[in-house]
């Protein structure tokens, strides 16, 4: 039973790059983050380093180098359905969002003191996805409101929102960044579909 209102006018009236779609509470997302807390997951930075000269990746890497971005602060971890958590969650979210199908889904994690600097997601399978029609992208916050947890998508600064908050991206390739200036890991569920 919810004891406090989850209605947040800010999410309905001020977002520009995303559309807020209420809350997903059909699974306990906080419990899932606790299950993942000791799972090392997949280090995304290692993957980016391996692809740093590939089209798309190279532009982003150049931007970070030109800015002399503090590479020691760059770190994020991904978890994948079927490997790190149950596919059932993705299926249920997709059903809730009325998606016909899912291209890919993952949970991102940023630990305290780290960030994923400005980037857009390079996806080698993008053209294949487009054959299914318009690509739809959603992000769902998985932590209770936590000081220092910040997710920026285009013009939207998302912070202090309850777990389960759903944000639909207007542009699936939008520039974005995740920042954790808080004291606990920040988890977000992402889903691309059609």
């Amino acid at each position, binding site marked *: 039973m919810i004891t406090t*209102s*989850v*209605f947040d006018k800010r999410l309905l009236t001020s977002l520009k790059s995303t559309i*807020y*779609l209420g*809350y997903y*509470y*059909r699974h306990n997302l906080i419990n899932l983050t606790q299950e993942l807390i000791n799972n090392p997951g997949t280090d995304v930075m290692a993957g980016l380093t391996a692809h740093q000269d590939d089209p798309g990746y190279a532009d982003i890497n150049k931007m970070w180098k030109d800015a002399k971005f503090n590479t020691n602060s760059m770190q994020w971890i991904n978890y994948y359905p079927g490997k790190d958590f149950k596919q059932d969650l993705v299926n249920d979210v997709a059903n809730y*969002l009325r998606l016909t199908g899912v291209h890919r889904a993952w949970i991102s994690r940023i630990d305290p003191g780290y960030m994923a600097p400005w980037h857009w997601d390079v996806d080698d399978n993008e053209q294949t996805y487009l054959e299914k029609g318009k690509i739809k992208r959603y992000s769902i916050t998985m932590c209770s409101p936590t000081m220092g947890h910040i997710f920026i998508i285009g013009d939207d600064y998302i912070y202090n929102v309850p777990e389960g908050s759903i944000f639909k991206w207007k542009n699936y390739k939008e520039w974005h960044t995740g920042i954790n200036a808080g004291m606990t890991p920040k988890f977000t569920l992402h889903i691309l579909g059609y």
Partner: protein
Amino acid sequence: MITTLELTYNPQDAVAYLKQLQTDYEHYHWHYIKDHNDTRSLSDHFSLKTMHGYGLQTIYNDLAFPYHCDIDPHDEGPEYFKDTALVFGFFKMIKDNFNNVFRSFVMTFEPGDYIGKWTAGVKPHIRVFVPLVTNGTNWLRAYDSNGHYSVVPEVGKIYTIDMLDKTSYANIVNEGNENISFIMFSTL
């Protein structure tokens, strides 16, 4: 208090509207238990095992995303609700007779489903009921300091419950053997 308005409508128009939702707008259709985002909000005041419906308006900027019957009591008002593609024909004709319409739904309660008692929440309002399919039972009920009221809704008539008084309650109880379907919305 439950009031029967002088405003009436052709029952055939109501049935046609419901059938058009069922045939052309399935994308908007939700089942409360299967699709609702927060089953934790179900308490002993509700038994909505089979209740289903459509959000005719939405608070979201994605007008195609089904708006569920959200019972989280927030300080909403008509300024937050936008018409979806389901505001056409029969419902639009009804809606145009009222000012500041918000939280509009089509709901179907199967036998045994019930909701409430609920209060006005933080936004006192008049709640309007437009029966689409009914079953001869007194499923619409209201309670205030003067007593309790119930009616046997008839298709073709429009009923209101005064929720301007924060001590008022209302509930819907389908004790019959057949489904009931109705449009429900709030107005100021």
